[in-house]
């Protein structure tokens, strides 16, 4: 295992290698270009074509954590039932999503909790049952497991079991940063969406961009009688910036979006890997002339928009599902099974899954485990040539 040691002078000449630096030979796995990706609104002009966005809205260029901040500010000023709490939230939170909100809305509504995830979740459920709209932050999705009991056994079953009382925990939103950034290792990298997606009674949402995040978060807080698990890809907090309407607006949950229409193959994804998908699509459309790939953002992972996905795949006949979390028993398995049930006779190739390998994310191994542009490119190619 130990390689022969290079002479010291040689080592000094090799440029320092970061964990996720691309090699000079790489053609596909280049750093994502968030400045030009078609997934973001780089000018305010393109916002007006989006059906959910308020017409004639003023807008501002925000990154994801600023958009979350804007959504939370909008929510807190829209209703005094909205509360915001979690570990270090009063100081802005570790990712700065709640910056300045305590000073604007007071410590009765925006406050720190002890390090007590189970307590945070249970406390939030109780408050929601009594009519509040609590937005609870778990500092990392990796820390949610003590809260899992509360989410599964209390939050998810609340409306189902309440008899004639009419009580529900709608307005309860549990926010958590998820996903990889390149060096989070075992406990700061996980994306546990498929664990929640196994549980009827919760809605699981993961936005792809700042403008999406604001609309989806406001929708989660104000428009549903179900608790919502709102997962924020932390790699996008600073990386993804776009124009976001200043006003209140919502984007419906459980509605997928075709972010790029196409005719030959459908890619179904959500969250951060959409940017990898988009890069892979433009690479394959350049390489294989005439090929046209459709890209769907699920946006809500559960309950998910089967209709949009089925209609698309019935048209294209080919599908690839991409997600960052592990492939085993993941969202891709559910989508693939649904496609073979609902589009079997139209399928020209097996549904392919590109996802994290079934392993933990060791510190130095993240780049090998997560889907990258090359793997998505390869999956598209194999599926087209099947």
């Amino acid at each position: 295992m130990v390689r022969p040691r290079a002479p010291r002078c040689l080592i000094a000449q090799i440029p320092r290698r970061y964990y996720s630096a691309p090699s000079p030979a790489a053609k596909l796995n280049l750093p994502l270009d968030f400045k030009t990706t078609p997934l973001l609104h780089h000018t305010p002009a393109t916002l007006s074509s989006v059906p959910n966005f308020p017409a004639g809205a003023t807008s501002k260029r925000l990154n994801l954590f600023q958009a979350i901040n804007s959504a939370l500010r909008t929510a807190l000023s829209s209703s005094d039932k909205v509360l915001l709490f979690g570990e270090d939230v009063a100081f802005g939170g570790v990712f700065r999503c709640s910056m300045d909100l305590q000073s604007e809305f007071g410590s009765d509504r925006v406050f720190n909790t002890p390090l007590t995830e189970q307590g945070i979740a249970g406390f939030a459920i109780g408050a929601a049952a009594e009519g509040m709209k609590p937005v609870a932050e778990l500092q990392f999705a990796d820390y949610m497991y003590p809260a899992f009991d509360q989410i599964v056994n209390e939050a998810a079953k609340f409306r189902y079991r309440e008899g004639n009382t009419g009580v529900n925990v709608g307005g309860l939103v549990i926010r958590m940063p998820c996903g990889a950034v390149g060096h989070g290792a075992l406990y700061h990298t996980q994306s546990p969406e498929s664990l929640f997606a196994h549980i009827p009674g919760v809605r699981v949402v993961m936005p792809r961009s700042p403008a999406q995040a604001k609309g989806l978060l406001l929708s989660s807080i104000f428009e549903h009688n179900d608790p919502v698990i709102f997962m924020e890809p932390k790699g996008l907090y600073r990386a993804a910036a776009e124009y976001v309407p200043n006003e209140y607006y919502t984007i419906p949950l459980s509605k997928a979006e075709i972010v790029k229409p196409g005719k030959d193959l459908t890619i179904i994804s959500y969250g951060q890997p959409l940017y990898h998908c988009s890069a892979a699509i433009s690479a394959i459309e350049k390489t294989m002339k005439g090929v046209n790939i459709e890209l769907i953002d699920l946006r809500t992972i559960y309950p998910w928009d089967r209709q949009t996905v089925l209609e698309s795949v019935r048209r294209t006949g080919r599908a690839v599902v991409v997600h960052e979390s592990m492939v085993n028993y993941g969202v891709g398995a559910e989508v693939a099974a649904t496609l073979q049930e609902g589009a079997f006779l139209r399928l020209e190739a097996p549904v392919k899954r590109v996802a994290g390998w079934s392993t933990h994310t060791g510190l130095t191994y993240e780049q090998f485990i997560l889907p990258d542009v090359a793997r998505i490119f390869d999956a598209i190619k194999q599926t087209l040539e099947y």
Partner: protein
Amino acid sequence: MRPFNASLLSLRARIPGLGTSTCPLYTSTRRFAQVANVQDIPTEDDKPFTVPIADTSFETYHFDPPTYSVKTTKSQLKQLFRDMTTIRRMELTADGLYKQRKIRGFCHLSIGQEAVSVGIEHAITREDKLITAYRSHGNTLMRGGTIKSILGELLGRRDGIAHGKGGSMHMYAKSFFGGNGIVGTSVPLGTGIAFAQQYDQTGNITVNLYGDGAANQGQVHEAFNMAKLWNLPVIFGCENNKYGMGTSVERASASTEYYKRGQYIPGLKVDGMDVLAVLAAMRHGREWVKAGKGPLVYEYATYRFAGHSMSDPGTAYRTREELQTERSNDPISNLKSKLIDWGIMTEDEARAVDKEVRGMVSREVEAAEQMPVPEPRWDVLFEDIYVPGSEPDQRRGRTVDETVY
């Protein structure tokens, strides 16, 4: 993609004395002007004698305090000093490597808390077990991890103590169960370890450490209950460094008397900035637990001079004055001034130890930096996960280097 904490890094204010090799390792302010005179200090290094401990060192809860003196030897006292100095130097080195962007990800330093890990180790044996949370570099070293294996792990190298898989929070050694990234989850584990010890009648104990933040997790209290119910040989130890990340204990805990949190379990609060107090308390507690009297809840009153993690400058939620006051109560200079007053070590000898440790740590860093990064091979990537041969079949794009079409 930028690391998500990049802009926080730029905000990092410089804390005096942190992270620069030119700064002294610790402040030289003497806090204990009136150190008791120790009579009859033997000339031999290995001959036992007794040194006093300040009468403010302990607070008790349904528990008799240890005697306010501790039996030791000159060589042990010098070793305590050397061990704390080594941890401090290793942590400062990690700080430097992080700032050079050689260490990535999460890194929690224990600068200021050295007396706890060193005092505990000198009171227990290698057959006793220890488990702790994420601020674990000092404990790893004291449990037998080498400096280069610890720094190698931080650097993500194959020969790191966990093969580069874990990084800062996940280090293991014989009789040392980590290094756990999720606050509070290690505490029931430590209780299970103690149960196994009791079941196997090993006569050894488990030291079960967690932080003041973790003390509010439900599972800590579940562990207390089981430990007392079954009278397990475990010392729960709350390292109270006054802040759970950026939240002070007063803002997070209805009761900040963590040594009383066991309710039905006797407790002891120890001055965690005095390594001799920690040593005495642990010996006392170990005898109690070994005698089958059941668990104890200890609280080590300590202080973290560094930020919570590398992206936290540690200045936003506490005042500079507070930090300065606490730094004048440095566990290393506390011991040093006593040893000098007692005539066990001279200022020059202390400086020599310091210099020697500095040289030793820098040799270890060099060795760690020479360690190979893990090879991007399937058997390495899927080690401990898949039955060999059953790994995913991946034809192209396995690594960035292979991505050429």
